[in-house]
């Protein structure tokens, strides 16, 4: 009986948490927007976007380089090294760009968002905002949410672009693939709507999920050092799993049915 009780309690807790998460997002997004929030959002954009650039660029570069190296050794057996360009570009734009960016974003920016909001809660800053008649959802949560939504697709595109350049560096400059075929076959194969836009849509969905989880985990955290460390870990674990799972669903919807 205990087992059944526990399952029931855990389920109810999860459902209640989903409800709270929904209410929080609703409160943050549909409260009357205020012009004062624009500078706050820009500042958060700097924190979650610009400050994530280094890790995104370095990872993108190396992933592009590795793919070119791996792709070249396989393609060259079939004399198809001319297809290196589209291979690198398509894998980056469709999959690796959005997915790896989202995973890195969860680790770099998501964890920071959770810890920051959690600590604001622990130090009573959120309560004190409320007592000053300032809604913390609008003042603290909304700017961070929008900053994540704007930053992530841009980071994903930068990731893909740098990766394609990294592929060029290894494939063309070091391994001797013809530069003309690297670019021209890529240009002929990559479709704007199907590949680029779908990639952007993917990273918008990931941005929503990762940022939502990050701010909710912070806002809902138990305001103790243990609670915040737990919330930060959960942010990274839950958003990574959600991104990987959703990626399959989105890929199936976008590319599965021809």
């Amino acid at each position, binding site marked *: 009986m205990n087992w059944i009780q526990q399952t029931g309690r855990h389920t109810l807790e999860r459902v209640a948490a989903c409800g709270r998460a929904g209410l929080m997002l609703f409160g943050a997004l549909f409260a009357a927007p205020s012009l004062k929030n624009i500078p706050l959002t820009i500042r958060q954009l700097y924190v979650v976007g610009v400050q994530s650039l280094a890790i995104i660029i370095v990872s993108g570069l190396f992933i592009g380089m590795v793919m070119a190296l791996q792709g070249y050794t396989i393609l060259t057996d079939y004399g198809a090294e001319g297809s290196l360009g589209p291979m690198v570009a398509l894998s980056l734009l469709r999959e690796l760009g959005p997915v790896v960016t989202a995973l890195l974003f969860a680790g770099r920016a998501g964890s920071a968002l959770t810890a920051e909001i959690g600590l604001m809660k622990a130090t*009573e*800053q959120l*309560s*004190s905002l409320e007592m*000053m*008649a*300032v809604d913390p959802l609008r003042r603290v949560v909304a700017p961070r949410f929008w900053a994540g939504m704007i930053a992530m697709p841009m980071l994903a595109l930068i990731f893909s672009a740098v990766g394609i350049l990294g592929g060029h560096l290894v494939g063309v400059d070091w391994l001797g693939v013809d530069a003309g075929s690297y670019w021209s076959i890529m240009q002929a194969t990559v479709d704007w709507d199907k590949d680029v836009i779908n990639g952007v849509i993917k990273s918008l969905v990931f941005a929503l999920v990762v940022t939502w989880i990050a701010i909710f985990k912070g806002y809902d955290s138990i305001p103790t050092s243990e609670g915040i460390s737990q919330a930060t870990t959960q942010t990274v674990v839950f958003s990574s799993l959600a991104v990987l799972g959703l990626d399959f669903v989105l890929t199936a919807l976008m590319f599965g049915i021809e």
Partner: protein
Amino acid sequence: MQSNMDYLVDVKNMTFSRGERVIYDGISLRVPKGKITAVMGPSGIGKTTLLKLIGGQLIPDGGDITFDGESIPAMSRKALYHNRRRMSMLFQSGALFTDMTVFDNVAFPLREHTKLSESIIATIVALKLQAVGLRGAAQMMPSELSGGMARRAALARAIALDPDLIMYDEPFAGQDPISMGVLVKLIRELNDALNLTSIVVTHDVTEVLTIADYIYILADQRVIGEGTAEQIKGSDSELVQQFLQGKADGPVPFHYPADDLRAAFLGESD
């Protein structure tokens, strides 16, 4: 009997519980206008919870809380936010925004709620900081302040909008004797100079007896003693006396309820 209009906050037969744990069971207390009312009680009795209930951050399970005649639990969100501009709370930790200077912290409520120009805001902030003796620290970050200074800076922020009610959550906790003296003086002077009503939640008996006009002592989910400092000192309630004199054992037992020590060590032999 004074009329209701003489009380800014009126807690009527209020019940509140967190999960299984009952925090308040039919508690009633009234806060007279323009006076300093102290709420004392042992740690962990939910004194901070009481302030959050008055501030509308928590909703009572039963009974009513009125602020200037209006019921707080019944207020719409908009009305609540409107009324919160008239009340202010000094949190135990100060709760200064760590990413802003002291100046910006004090200016924050003014920038949020008024359309004053920056030069007027600068003047008001300078005056508020002068009142708490921190005008020279305006450009410091909260992390550079000592505990006592942080609390004074938070106090300047709390009075920035000239509220009617200010609630102090454990203002003396963890302060050295000098900061404690400064805070006692500030609470009294601000209350009289700005015509405020103050609620001080604390367990520092000596400090409170010197400044409070009226004192409530809470224990066991209710009010166990009330009156002026003199009346409280002369109270014949054992519980009140234990609290005032800081006796280790009494109606509030030294031991947290546990089974018999002999039985625990020797098994269930007897």
